[in-house]
């Protein structure tokens, strides 16, 4: 049951990163592809009806993690205290910047929220990347499952007392920034008309080039920093399917981009992100949070909630997810297609 929940929580987090990833990425790429107020409004409009729903995946994943693995939730959230609260502030700043920009027609008002939208989107991606890197690298857990990490110590991932930021986690954070920015740029290319669409497509291409380097470095570094990774893959070789899928997604992304098939390029990017996260989850399983001292690691068995709780949870979870999927299909179908200038006039005026 715990393994099942490990997969389901992983699925929810993946859904979050894939979905909110494109609107975060759209924020990170916005200043580089938008040349007018109209462009900026267009980008906001492309994510306007969906960003909030995308973010719900984070809340829902958090809640699900909470009841299925209470100890992990408590330990990780308190241990990553400062970065987590900073993430909350960024989420707030970003949320209001999206929603409030269009409320008052004043160029300074708009510029302020545009800048906040860009900064908070980019920083959020960096924090998420660093968070994932911390989980992969491991933290200084004590025997009772608690820890507290400073934002940085000596920037060395092999340290006895590692910080949130070290060269490894920064590398993965940059990788995340690259991957999600390309993801967001591709989404903008799908949703907006030319010339913004072709600018976004070109930007995605440039970022894709940088990502070749980042992904390569990130993979090698992960292999070195967390020995558990190679163990996982060599003891269960079928897991190589995940990195392989990531490569497929990554290559397909640029091929579709070059053919100007933005929609399929976007789907390829989704595949890439999902496969990357699946690789990471596969690599650390059955650990959930590795410790510097391996005996203290939190695993799917020592961090899990009661079997009864996990079982009844599964029943309503399935119902909830079917409903959620229905709303998502409905919303995305209703708002399908490119944004036209006239539709810009509803909602944000």
């Amino acid at each position: 049951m715990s393994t099942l929940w490990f997969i389901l929580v992983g699925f929810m987090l993946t859904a979050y990163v894939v979905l909110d990833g494109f609107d975060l990425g759209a924020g990170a790429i916005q200043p580089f592809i938008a040349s007018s107020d109209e462009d900026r409004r267009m980008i906001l409009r492309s994510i306007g009806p969906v960003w909030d729903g995308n973010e719900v995946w984070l809340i829902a994943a958090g809640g699900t993690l909470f009841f299925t693995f209470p100890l992990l939730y408590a330990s990780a959230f308190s241990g990553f205290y400062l970065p987590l609260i900073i993430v909350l502030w960024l989420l707030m700043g970003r949320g209001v910047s999206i929603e409030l920009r269009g409320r008052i027609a004043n160029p300074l008002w708009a510029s302020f929220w545009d800048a906040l939208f860009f900064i908070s989107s980019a920083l959020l991606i960096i924090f998420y990347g660093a968070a994932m890197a911390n989980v992969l690298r491991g933290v200084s857990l004590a025997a009772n499952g608690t820890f507290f990490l400073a934002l940085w110590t000596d920037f060395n991932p092999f340290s006895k007392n590692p910080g949130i930021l070290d060269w490894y986690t920064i590398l993965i954070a940059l990788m995340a920034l690259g991957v999600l920015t390309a993801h967001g740029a591709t989404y903008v290319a799908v949703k907006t008309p030319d010339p913004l669409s072709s600018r976004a497509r070109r930007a995605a291409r440039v970022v894709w080039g940088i990502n070749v380097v980042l992904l390569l470095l990130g993979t090698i570094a992960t292999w070195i920093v967390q020995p558990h990774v190679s163990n996982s893959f060599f003891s269960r070789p079928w897991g190589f399917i995940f990195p392989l899928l990531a490569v497929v997604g990554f290559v397909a992304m640029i091929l579709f981009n070059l053919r100007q098939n933005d929609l399929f390029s976007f789907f390829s990017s989704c595949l890439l992100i999902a496969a990357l996260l699946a690789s990471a989850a596969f690599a650390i399983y059955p650990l959930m949070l590795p410790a510097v001292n391996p005996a203290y690691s939190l695993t799917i068995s020592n961090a899990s909630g009661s079997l009864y709780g996990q079982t009844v949870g599964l029943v309503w979870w399935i119902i909830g997810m079917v409903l959620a999927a229905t709303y998502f299909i409905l919303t995305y179908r209703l708002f399908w297609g490119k944004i036209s200038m006239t539709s810009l006039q509803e909602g944000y005026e």
Partner: protein
Amino acid sequence: MPISTILSRLQFAFTISFHYLFPQLTMGLALLLVVLKGLYLWRHDERFNVSTRFWTKILAITFVMGVVTGIPMEFQFGTNWAAFSTYAGDIIAQTLAMEGAFAFFLESAFLGIMLFGEQAFGQRMHFFATVMVWIGTWASGGFIIASNAWMQHPVGYTIVGNKLHLSNYLAVLLNSWTVPQYMHTMSGAVITGSFFMAGLGAYYLLMKQHVDYARIFITVGVIAGFLASCFQLFPSGDMEGRQVATYQPVKLAAMEGLFKTQSGAGVIILGQPDPDHGTLDNPLIVPNVLSFLTYRRWTATVRGLNAFPRSQWPDSISLLYYSYHIMVGLGTIFIAIMGFGALFLLWQRRLFRYRWMLWIIMLATPFPFIANTAGWFTTELGRQPWIIYGLLPTAQGVTSTLSDGNVLFTLLGFMGMYLLLGLVYVLLMTFEAITGPAAHEHKQESTQEAEGLSDEFASGLGGE
């Protein structure tokens, strides 16, 4: 109590008090929007539709504030209350996670349609989305009340080692504590929404602006506000009070300011408690009423604080006492205001001419926020010194690894952040109020043409 624990409590209290200013308005307005949109579909009077659009905009801004200030709430269970989360996460997180799965997805999807889809998808779909947003916001409230109810009155658990395990899911979901508290909270939200709507209507009427709309706002606001204010007292408030008397007699004694056990206990209208000496300064008491309200007998004995050991007393009795009295006092005033408002409305629409009454309704706008906040202070301060009533003391629920400096850092950060958010919100509300509902009329033609037509076609027709 260590400083870091006090700071964590302050941070939770501050962030949740600020947060709840927004959802109460959202939940209240969501219901009133269903009324407005329903009136439009029934009467085909375009003014109702313009009103819907105007209030949807206010709802949307409020909703966003609620969303962004709400995210920290769930996360703080993990960050600042890790021991509590480890101890009770198996149970408390069920309802929290259900909120995400059943309410948040619903709200976010249909709010998107409500805001962006009126032209493209037609009026019936828009009404449907409005209803779904209402259901979503109220379901969200339900799951939160269920979580809080469990902390007030834990059920359906077994103690395994040093943790609680869920043993009866339905018992948690159908906790008897939930029903009165849910009714009381939701009608409190409707009071906030109605006073807000009526208050702005009164402002417009006093200013002689948007007169047609102002009358709609006042009519809907006053009628809904009157019904909700009455419901707040009876049955929901009465049920809550008797429930507290049954399960949390210490809370009852502390909030009523009843230091000594009495038969035929009275209700204190005014007076300043002195918990150290167990006395009340400058008392104004109506005798026997408390006994009657609690036990339906005028001479029944009500246990005072002296019947319980001091270690069980809530730790801020004076604040608890004032919170409760502010809530009840304001609640009584609300019934009076909306009662007279409804009377003058029915009596040949005199309300629209009685400027003094419009002044009162306008100035009353902020008070439901205070009453709702005071109500929550009563519930939560009264639960102290427990974080889970009778099971886990608050002092043992906190994260052990947090230093004072780190909590103070984030508390100050939240304060700064929320100050800015609050200012921006007030600015935007002022801006929307000045712009007024008439600004939403221009869509009239294109909307009617767009009804039932596809997006592209509608855009083509609109083509301004």
